[in-house]
């Protein structure tokens, strides 16, 4: 059964909607949410944690509407679904040692003997690759990577069923990142932990998430099995994201010179950046539809799948500077 789901969720600050009609379901294992700054991914994460109320649509915890949970239901939810944000220092009290922070989380939900607490703190620190001595340090005495790992250990202390991770490793060194990703894989395999991984790093979701959704300007433009999205992306934005990732020893990523164009206010929001845009994209916003095992919101999805190379077509009214002419 689905543990946590957004169903047609629209989120707004005042009159401005930042997330439009998004649906997303989480269960055991990883689900990826891919988006860049301004895509609405962090607002969506906050809604999934019950911190922002949907303007329309429902966030469901099991079969229940998150907004309608009573006091005990909310307490249960707060334990089952734990957030991990980009900067671990936000989650840690600057006056408390790492050990005290983790112990506090442990004892909020369980009564434990002092010895059992100490053992559990050590085990949690070991899980995130930290030595027991870290327990005596305060946040300012740790490196960024150590703080982030303590924050993850604290989130895991309550034995959550689901983690909502917002760019959890983007501030970490690659070797530390690799270690955290291994830990998540292991917890998912051994304990059925579920997680929503919000990131702009396609390499990370490729490794950890069975399914992923790509968010652009608050809308899911493509969703489906992660492997498919990475090896055969259909939406031009998914393709742009994949092509922008530098590869070790690879050619430098191609650029279009239009990367920083704002989302279009009408029609397809991606059309001002899109190498495939045609008149229809200006006149009519594409709705997500089922195309070969994934959902895509693009008028030209079938053409792309039948072999139209995304970089070889000029945009209506402007040539992509980085794209070869046909």
């Amino acid at each position, binding site marked *: 059964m689905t543990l946590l789901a957004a169903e047609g969720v629209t989120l707004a600050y005042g009159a401005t909607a930042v997330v439009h009609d998004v649906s997303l379901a989480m269960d055991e294992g990883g689900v990826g949410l891919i988006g*860049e*700054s301004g895509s609405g991914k962090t607002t969506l994460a906050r809604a999934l944690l019950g911190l922002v109320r949907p303007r329309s649509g429902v966030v469901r915890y099991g079969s229940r509407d998150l907004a309608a949970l009573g006091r005990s239901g909310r307490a249960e939810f707060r334990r089952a679904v734990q957030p991990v944000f980009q900067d671990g220092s936000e989650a840690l009290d600057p006056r408390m040692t790492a050990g005290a922070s983790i112990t506090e989380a442990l004892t909020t939900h369980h009564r434990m003997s002092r010895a059992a607490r100490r053992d559990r703190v050590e085990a949690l620190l070991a899980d995130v690759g930290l030595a027991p001595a870290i327990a005596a340090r305060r946040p300012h005495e740790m*490196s*960024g*990577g150590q703080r982030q790992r303590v924050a993850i250990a604290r989130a895991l202390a309550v034995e959550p069923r689901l983690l909502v991770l917002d760019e959890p490793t983007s501030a970490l*060194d*690659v*070797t*530390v*990142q*690799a270690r955290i*990703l291994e830990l998540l894989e292991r917890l998912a395999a051994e304990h059925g932990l579920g997680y929503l991984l919000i990131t*702009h*790093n*396609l*390499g*990370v979701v*490729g*490794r950890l998430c069975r399914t992923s959704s790509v968010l652009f300007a608050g809308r899911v433009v493509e969703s489906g099995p992660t*492997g498919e999205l*990475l*090896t*055969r992306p259909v939406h031009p934005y998914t393709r*742009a*994201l*994949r*092509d*922008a*990732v*530098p*590869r*070790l*020893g*690879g*050619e*430098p*990523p*191609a*650029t279009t*010179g239009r*990367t*920083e164009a704002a989302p279009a206010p009408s029609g397809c929001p991606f059309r001002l950046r899109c190498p495939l845009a045609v008149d229809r994209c200006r006149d009519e916003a594409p709705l997500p539809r089922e195309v070969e095992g994934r959902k895509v919101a693009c008028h030209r999805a079938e053409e792309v799948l039948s072999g139209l*190379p995304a970089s070889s077509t000029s945009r209506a009214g402007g040539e992509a500077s*980085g794209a070869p002419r046909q």
Partner: protein
Amino acid sequence: MSLISVRDLVVRIGDRVIASVPELDVAAGECVALVGESGSGKTTTLLATLGLVRGADVSGKITVGDVDVLAASPARLREIRGSRAALVMQSPQAALNPTMRLGTLMRRALARHGVKGAAARERAREAVRAVLLDPEILRRYPHQVSGGQAQRFAIALALALGAQVVLADEPTSALDVTVQAEVVAVLRRLRDERGLAMLLVSHDLALVSTIADRVVVMRDGAVVESGSAADVFGRPRDPYTRELIAAVPALPESAEER
């Protein structure tokens, strides 16, 4: 000829060596990358190159252009930092005065170097175009531009002042991947077309492999391996370099024929 030359650099705090680099040269039209993890000494090395390390003992010989950095007067160092070498940091917006339009900012900087009036306006437009920005951006305030635009403007500012050397510390790590690709494309272009010498600090090995000509791998303040980018990434000798390379999350190969 090397525009940046470092010999026997040792940076110490008390007894602790935080960076030790026996030899580092960056020629015109060349990009050299310092890679490593937090605490490796890569940023310290970059800052030492411009005489910007504080509260530590710095020894060795550092030359930028024809200036002996460790022997130079504070006024001379300010001059290098102002006009010969551009320092590009992770958050450029923080370095831009928020109360001034970008064009005003650039004109004031040019005026300090004696370039004024129509010549200054032309120089500003030309520098902005060189980083693939629309000169319209000169009318905006720092908060009205994106992170990638601010980063490119910071590079343009240095270009307008005639910088031949760019020192960049994680210039793209705060940017989205698509914007990162644009900034890297600009850096490559400036290196190739204007012959700038670049010293780049980054923890992103994949990114480095798409721009660096040579790579220096640092760990705990010491150089563990250095060589051409092709050698370091293709045939890494040091186990630590291999570990770093193995930790880079890989994308699956595209299913399409390319």
